């Protein structure tokens, strides 16, 4: 049971790290999704700032959740974020069906659809599983392990950033014009 709970916790932390890192590779693109959820007419720099803040928030929570497993409040925070995902997916499905959600930046071409709502609900369910109690001994990490985990998590964020950038760049090839 402990393994299942820890798998859920670490998987969600990695998901947040990857999502945050990938979104940071193209904040302008994610800002266009943010615009969908702001009913007021907002200046583009503010939208970009919100997009960057959301991405950094995801990244920070993911890093903290992965490297500080003993802090149970982080599990509740991750559950709250997962519930926010469900709400965003449901609103997107209701009002912006078919639009790209940019949940993972350029890494994913997922759109607001019924499957997206289901996916978010599954994530929220996994976050609920991660709330279960695990013995303190299983969560004990020394300083070295913590630093190594942080380094690996940082590397994961960098890999997600790079992968999203590669995918984004790959979708805009040079034009070919043949003259006769």
């Amino acid at each position, binding site marked *: 049971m402990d393994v299942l709970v820890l*798998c859920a916790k*670490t998987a969600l932390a990695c998901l947040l790290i990857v999502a945050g890192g990938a979104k940071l590779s193209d904040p*302008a693109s994610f800002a266009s999704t943010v615009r969908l959820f702001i009913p007021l007419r907002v200046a583009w720099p503010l939208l970009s700032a919100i997009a960057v803040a959301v991405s950094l928030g995801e990244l920070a929570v993911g890093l903290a959740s992965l490297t500080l497993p003993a802090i149970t409040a982080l599990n509740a925070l991750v559950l709250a974020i997962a519930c926010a995902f469900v709400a965003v997916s449901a609103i997107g499905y209701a009002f912006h069906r078919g639009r790209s959600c940019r949940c993972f930046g350029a890494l994913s071409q997922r759109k607001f659809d019924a499957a997206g709502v289901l996916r978010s609900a599954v994530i929220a369910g996994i976050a609920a599983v991660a709330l279960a109690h695990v013995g303190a001994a299983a969560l*004990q*990490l020394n300083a070295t*392990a913590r630093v190594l985990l942080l380094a690996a998590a940082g590397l*994961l964020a960098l890999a997600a950033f790079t992968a999203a950038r590669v995918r984004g760049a790959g979708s805009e090839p040079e034009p*070919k014009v*043949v003259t006769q």
Partner: protein
Amino acid sequence: MKIPLYLAVAQWTLLFAFGLLLIVVYRQLGRALHKTDTAAPLGPEVGSKAASLEYSRFADDTVQYLTPGDGQPTLLAFVEPTCLSCEKLVLALGTAEQAGELSDLRVLLLTSSPKSYLKISDAFRATRLECGRILAQATAQAYRATSTPLLVAIDRDGVVRAAAPAIQLAEVRTFSRACLLPPPAGEPIPITATAPQHETDLEAAAPAAGAD
């Protein structure tokens, strides 16, 4: 030395996440190097005869039937209001149009989105260019519009003279010049008949286009 359970689980999860990212990058690299056959060709073949197309014109909600080769050069832009690069292309087309650089051409913006989607994009809402929604799946297939933005230059004889993604004003100018190229001499023009290998947004949305 006994490793804490959390550390062991976290290591495997991180390894799994790295593996997934590696697959994503590898697939993209494969496409870039043309070593996989998953990437369908984008745009109609240059030199082929452009296919006829049917679309719903947003300006008056009428169905239009366009037959390239009727003597008027045509610049087709396959775009989506939800795509930032498409917005840039529409702005570039608008700039060229205002400068009178497209006066000899018929310029048409084609999308798979309903008319109501235009309002979410400032560029699409403000454009004075003719805009319409593709009505037949065959159109997206014939033009191999597997991703957007896609610009297709068709000359007065209905021959595709250029087809590629484009965003910038300089690219729009290149395409507009391609539309006005003199007819090619020599071999007869092949008809485009190659269907794409996988379905796209445009193709998927086309059958439902009449519902809006």
